[in-house]
């Protein structure tokens, strides 16, 4: 095992031992395990009060996003929005091995926000979480508000503005653009993990030790997120840059008029 990898694993293990020392065992391991990497919070991990609060805030956020989206969308957007929702759903089905013999999958919030704009992007990933929760029991119904807040609102809106902030200081090149996508994706995953930890610790039964575990795990998972998100955005950038939001941030060599590059 290469040294770097071993180091990371040792960190995760050290955190886990702290967690065990607090007398926190099997059922919770099973539950937190699912939350930790798939990030979708299942039912039963969020108390009634937190469920109500997160649902109310999430509904407010969706209402606001619908209002804002109305201005951002044109009729070409109809199939594009459907497509990105379908793609994010598909991508979330595929768990991929990441460093240290572990696995995780794409969440795609930042990617959707950067590609479609913050509010449309947020709606797209919210649609995915609704379909997953209602149709497929992936993430709880009571936890749907919390899941939408962490992986939808925070990831898409936060990812979008972080991307804008990063690219504001960079030259308009392809590498800067894609680098900013990677940074935004990674950061939003780690911050979303913190928010999920807030929900399940302060609104649920988990101990404070969930924080270091969630953060540590997602610093690794974020690398996968950044890799996939950047690849997808790169593919769109190469074929249809005119479909990307953030037109003012496109590389100078890729004018937003849809020049064929492929």
């Amino acid at each position, binding site marked *: 095992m290469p040294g770097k990898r071993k180091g990371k694993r040792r960190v995760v293990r050290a955190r886990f031992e702290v967690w065990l020392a607090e007398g926190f065992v099997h059922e919770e391991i099973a539950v937190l395990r699912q939350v930790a990497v798939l990030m979708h919070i299942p039912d039963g991990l969020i108390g009634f009060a937190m469920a109500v609060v997160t649902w109310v805030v999430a509904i407010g956020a969706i209402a606001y996003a619908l209002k804002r989206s109305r201005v951002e969308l044109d009729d070409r957007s109809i199939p594009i929005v459907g*497509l990105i929702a379908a793609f*994010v759903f598909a991508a979330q*089905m595929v768990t991929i091995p990441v460093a240290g013999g572990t696995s995780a999958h794409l969440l795609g919030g930042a990617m959707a926000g950067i590609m479609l704009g913050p509010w449309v992007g947020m709606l797209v990933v919210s649609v995915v979480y609704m379909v997953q929760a209602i149709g497929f029991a992936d993430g709880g119904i009571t936890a749907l508000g919390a899941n939408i807040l962490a992986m939808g609102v925070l990831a898409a809106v936060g990812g979008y503005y972080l991307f804008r902030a990063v690219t504001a200081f960079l030259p308009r090149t392809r590498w800067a653009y894609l680098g900013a996508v990677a940074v935004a994706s990674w950061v939003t995953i780690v911050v979303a993990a913190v928010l999920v930890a807030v929900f399940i610790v302060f609104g649920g039964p988990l101990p404070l030790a969930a924080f270091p575990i969630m953060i540590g795990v997602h610093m690794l998972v974020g690398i996968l997120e950044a890799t996939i998100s950047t690849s997808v955005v790169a593919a769109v950038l190469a074929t249809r840059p005119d479909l990307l939001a953030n037109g003012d941030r496109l590389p100078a060599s890729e004018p937003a008029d849809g020049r064929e590059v492929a």
Partner: protein
Amino acid sequence: MTSSSSRSVVPFVLAGLVVSLFIAVIVSNFAAESPDALQRAVIDSSCQGAATAEEAEECLAEQEGDPVLQVQPEPLFGYEATWLSGLVGVIACFALGAGIVLLLHRTGGASSGTSGRVR
């Protein structure tokens, strides 16, 4: 948006849907079976001898008497087949996503035609 933004999105959307369906229906069947990060932490701390995922699972099952090691969430809607879940989910997400936008558009979207999506 520049003038050529009227270029059709249909080929792009069709290509994207084919890719999405391919991922959801075919690739998802090969989703990683290796333990996720937290499982790995469990294995590292209590099942250090285990070399493969199978061995680790056995070791963990012994330790806990309980299958903690399901990588995938419970398959869904009672569908046994991953590909069917993928197919249904992709279609549902496309329909719902496009449907919401269509509805927004119909109910007096401020921007009809070519006004930019770019903020």
